[in-house]
């Protein structure tokens, strides 16, 4: 009997991810580790962590990594990749990091066409700090800093990072995916693999936005978050390829 699905080699043996039950951060960490195995790049990968729940991955996987100041992962990944062009560099950031305090670094790294990969988890909340409203919180979605739900008159509208970056000339690849069922997990893995392959091929800036959940701060069971995402999140944030060249 042959093993046809195995745990990726760069998840620490015996480790359990620090993420909450059903959190898609865990799924994406697994997929990145699978892609790293499949591309045979484990010994030359550098992860640049944003600030937030994402950094829980640092104790879970064995890839080399460093943390960046809040929001600055795209700037630090730019610098690291320019100094180490033979390494495969990716930033791993949430929406509170990439789309808020780090939006300038993100836009300018994309605009320069920096040759690294961005894995962007959009769960429409600030997870680690306690469910505050994020740039990506849906209209009407409750947050600890918007107890009556996001009100566009007061808080503006959700920020769509892929659409924003697609107005620039330089980015090579921008795609929005999700992990809410097996079919979409397979698509997400293909997008992540392409975003790494683009870097290997020297194509430039590639970003995958993964629509995700936060069962804890949304106050739902993991299964309830899947329904919420189908009914609300994916209507505000349509999946698709926004750039592929």
């Amino acid at each position, binding site marked *: 009997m*042959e093993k046809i699905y195995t*745990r990726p080699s760069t998840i620490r043996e015996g480790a359990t991810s620090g993420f909450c039950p*059903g*959190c898609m951060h865990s*799924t994406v960490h697994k997929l990145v580790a699978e892609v790293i195995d499949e591309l045979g790049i484990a010994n030359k990968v550098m992860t640049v962590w944003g600030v937030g729940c994402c950094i829980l991955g640092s104790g879970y996987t064995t890839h080399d990594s460093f943390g960046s100041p809040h929001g600055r992962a795209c700037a630090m990944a730019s610098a690291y990749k320019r100094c180490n062009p033979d390494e495969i560099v990716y930033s791993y950031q949430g929406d509170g990091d990439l789309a808020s305090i780090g939006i300038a670094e993100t836009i300018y790294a994309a605009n320069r066409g920096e040759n690294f990969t961005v894995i962007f988890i959009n769960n429409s909340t600030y997870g680690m700090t306690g469910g505050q409203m994020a740039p990506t919180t849906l209209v009407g979605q409750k947050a600890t800093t918007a107890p009556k739900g996001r009100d566009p008159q007061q808080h503006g509208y959700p920020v769509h990072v892929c659409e924003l970056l697609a107005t620039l000339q330089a980015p090579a690849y921008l795609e929005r995916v999700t992990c809410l069922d*097996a079919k979409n997990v397979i698509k997400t893995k293909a997008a992540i693999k392409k975003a790494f392959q683009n870097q290997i091929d020297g194509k430039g800036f590639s970003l995958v936005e993964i629509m995700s959940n936060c069962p804890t701060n949304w106050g739902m*069971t993991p*299964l309830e978050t899947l329904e919420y995402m189908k009914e609300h999140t994916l209507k505000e944030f349509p999946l698709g390829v926004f750039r592929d060249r």
Partner: protein
Amino acid sequence: MPKVEIRSESCKACEYCVVTCPNKVLAIGEANNSKGYHYVVPANPDACIGCKLCAIVCPDAAIEVYK
């Protein structure tokens, strides 16, 4: 015959695999792991067809599949 193996210490009982399996092989078990989660067990193992869908959706890489 295909089979799944659950790494019980990694399972967080999210139930994604339970609702994904087309043949209702998996169920939340009675026992709990050291973190307190009622980890998943192959309650109906003979029905497994080795499609891997459970392992694909598992966030925590807790499922390995043999065929």
